[in-house]
């Protein structure tokens, strides 16, 4: 990076994106977060996205619960079906089930780069882990981060992105998908 005037780095952006895909908890999904997201979108000149989010926010009695319900429906269990499980192996090289060989490969990749999951209550190819990993690797091994993006992240994320965009009923996840796509795709 050659710019001297920025104080938010790509690793930080990855961490922010990872955070945004956690189950919405009032600990972090609060006014500060929404304000930050709004500013972020404004800086990107994504005014349409910012407006949609603000409209949703204003028209809702319980914005947090809306997103919680949406998160549950899209990513955990839902009606009419688990819309878009946030795991690579559901989309890429396998039977659409969890812990396919792509998840194993992903875990191996983390290891090769010297990282281990601190607790294994979720699968290695969950989007939150992958984004957090990118944040870490971006600091120390930009080439590695690029490899990860190309070989392990983008091939499934593009499918996940379109699935979420199609299934989402709340603008929040559509916007987040667009942001993740923006910061992980090959050319900006």
């Amino acid at each position, binding site marked *: 990076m050659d710019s001297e005037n920025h*104080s938010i780095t*790509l690793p930080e952006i990855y961490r922010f994106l990872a955070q945004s895909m956690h189950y919405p908890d009032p600990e972090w999904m609060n006014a500060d977060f929404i304000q930050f997201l709004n500013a972020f979108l404004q800086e990107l000149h994504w005014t349409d996205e910012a407006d949609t989010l603000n409209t949703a926010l204003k028209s809702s009695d319980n914005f947090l619960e809306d997103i919680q319900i949406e998160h*549950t429906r899209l990513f955990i269990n839902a*009606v009419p079906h688990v819309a878009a499980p946030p795991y690579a192996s559901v989309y890429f090289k396998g*039977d659409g089930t969890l812990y396919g060989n792509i998840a194993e490969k992903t875990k191996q990749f983390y290891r090769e780069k010297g990282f281990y999951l601190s607790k294994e209550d979720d699968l290695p190819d969950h989007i939150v882990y992958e984004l957090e990993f990118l944040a870490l690797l971006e600091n120390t091994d930009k*080439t590695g981060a690029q*490899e990860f993006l190309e070989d392990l992240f983008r091939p499934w994320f593009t499918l996940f992105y379109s699935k979420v965009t199609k299934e989402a009923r709340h603008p929040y996840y559509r916007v987040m998908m667009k942001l993740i796509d923006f910061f992980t795709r090959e*050319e900006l």
Partner: protein
Amino acid sequence: MSLKVTRRKFLQTASLAAASVPLAKVVSAENGFVRKPFTPPGSSAGTTTVTGGICEMCFWRCQLVGKVRDKKLVKLEGNPKSIDNGTAICARGNAGIKLLYDPDRLKYPMKNVGERGNPKWKRISWEEALDECAAKLKAVEEKYGPHGIAMFPHGASAKYPMHFFERAVGTHNVSEASFFQCRGIRDTAYVSTFNTAPGEHVDMANAKAILLIGCHFGENVHVSHLKRYLKGLENGAKLVVVDPRYSASAAKSDIWVQIKPGTDTAFLLAIMNYLIENNKYDKKFVAAHCDGFEEFQKGISHASLDWAAQICDIPASQIKEVAELLAANAPNVSIHPGRHVSWHGNDFQRLRAHACLTALLGAIGVKGGFVKPKGPKVKGISWAKGHHDGAHNLKEMADKYHFAPPGTPTELIRDACITGKPYPIKGCVIWGQNPMQTIPKPQKTVEALKQMDFVMCVDVMPTDITMYADILLPEASYLERYDYIKKGTQWNFADKHEQFISARMPLVEAMFERKDEVWITNELAKRMGHADKIPVNSLEEKVEKELASAGLSIAQLKKEDGIHIQPGKDPYGVSEDFEVLLYNEDIEDSGYPGVPTYIPVEEVPKGFARLVYGRSPVHTFNRSQNNVWLYNAMPVNPVWLNDESANKMGLKDGDEVSMVNSEGVKSTFTSVVKVTPGIRKDTVYMAHGYGSKNPMLTVGKGAGIDDQALITKIAIDPETGCSGMRNNFVKLVKSGKALDIPA
């Protein structure tokens, strides 16, 4: 985890977008990566073998080992140390890993913020979920009494919570599908005859003849049970299969009795009458062990070969042939008690006839006969029995179903829910059971659930019933938890007598926030004011204590590769005081026939055929429908239709059809026709467990016809209250047109 960027800090940057642009340089960095093609390495590459698995894809529970690579369960295999299933496991057992890693599995506690049947789920914490479940159940208990709570349990993990609600909370309203819709009648009928529940304990491996009534082994698969059967056939046993359909077993039979459905009791009575009239029964055994022979003989004397031939729609000569074959091979004959036996509402009498025939042939405690294995003793640990009287026991209040299996018949519970009489039932706990598919007439179940104050479900997977939960709790699967003690003997009594004890141990850790039954139940108990009665603090402790009763421990079992084997005992022989009640006075006194009696079933109306269902080797009811491997093995359940009928109806093999029953209920989904000479004209058949409605399932939804939805007429077995489910009549529907099925 939390982001170190605040809004203030963020705003200090002049232009975030501009700062981000240089990313292009980063992402276009040179790629020094060499791609290697991925080749599946096989289950033995880089894996460790974890022992102590006990399957629960079905309830036979084979012993497993897991091949684990870097915390991922790669493959399941039979435990080579097993003297039960050995290295063999069935298709479902093999597919267990696809259940484990099913993305549709329940992961976190969820609250329904929508409505029952049309839920809107929100993930909540365990704390919130448990607080709410306990508060709502407690409220029901306080307002309506403990009997205001009904429970529908199924499977190994449901026993502990079932005992909690039965014994600590104190409700009689517990209804296990395995009893009331499956094998309960068999158990009580045999208890009323032999004073013991029979299990499937016939020594087929060493039999000279085997009689199967409706059993369709091969389509119905339980590993060590099939080993016995196949060993018997290999040893030259004659096989008689009584079935309206040329089943997988009929295809291996020496005699296929193509019986008219519902008339099996008449067939059995005629055989017994023939044996008595022709002095071909075991007089010595009868004299030594049987009570009420005279009443029995008199009671069945009307059952001539011709009488039965006409009722059963089979040649009299064939009944005689079967009787002769059984007599010639007695006492080494296996009269199989069956497993799923709740068919026609006349089943208690039929099962009594099975037991009586077994006794007349002297086929008890002898090679090839009814022989209970002598297994090891392990004491179960659970909630202490409370002091609850018969008050509020629906069965006793109704003064019906005097020979019902333990618990309360499902129909009585649902009727009470819907009518509020004799008392309201307003709280419902469903644990591992899917009453929408296990209990006929799902519309009634919906009605019962809708009027509840509170409904909670605990399961591994979303099922049709979970759509009606207020709170839905995720349970650890059989591969991720301790629990069941599996014990027994070697399957072939001709081999060295050995006993085994094994306990279910996790092959991998439970992921997400899945919890086991003891943890969930105890947390509820604490919140409902029963903390003082909690028998164990964890599932592991429960297993440890149970094993201790047999001088074992988890550590010891692990040392022994998951299975402890010890010398066994010869299971053959009959104790002197073994008593068979051919005529049972208690049954007579309760107002039912004390001698096995054939009660006619409703005739098939013109233009219809009787809907008969059975098992598919790749599914355990609807439980396995979402399993991607099993689904692909048999995506639909073909409807068996007699070839001559099909010809007249203009249907071809593979035609897509739906069904409508005589009460006008239509199947939701379609299936294909299987045109075959191997089924009677008055009967259509399909495998059970298809056509799940829950849209949460991504694989199994809408695959095949759901026979359960078409079973709207339930014949209640008067002695037991169990649900007979083969009294429904259907037409096939092609291109929107219902076609008459010619007689």
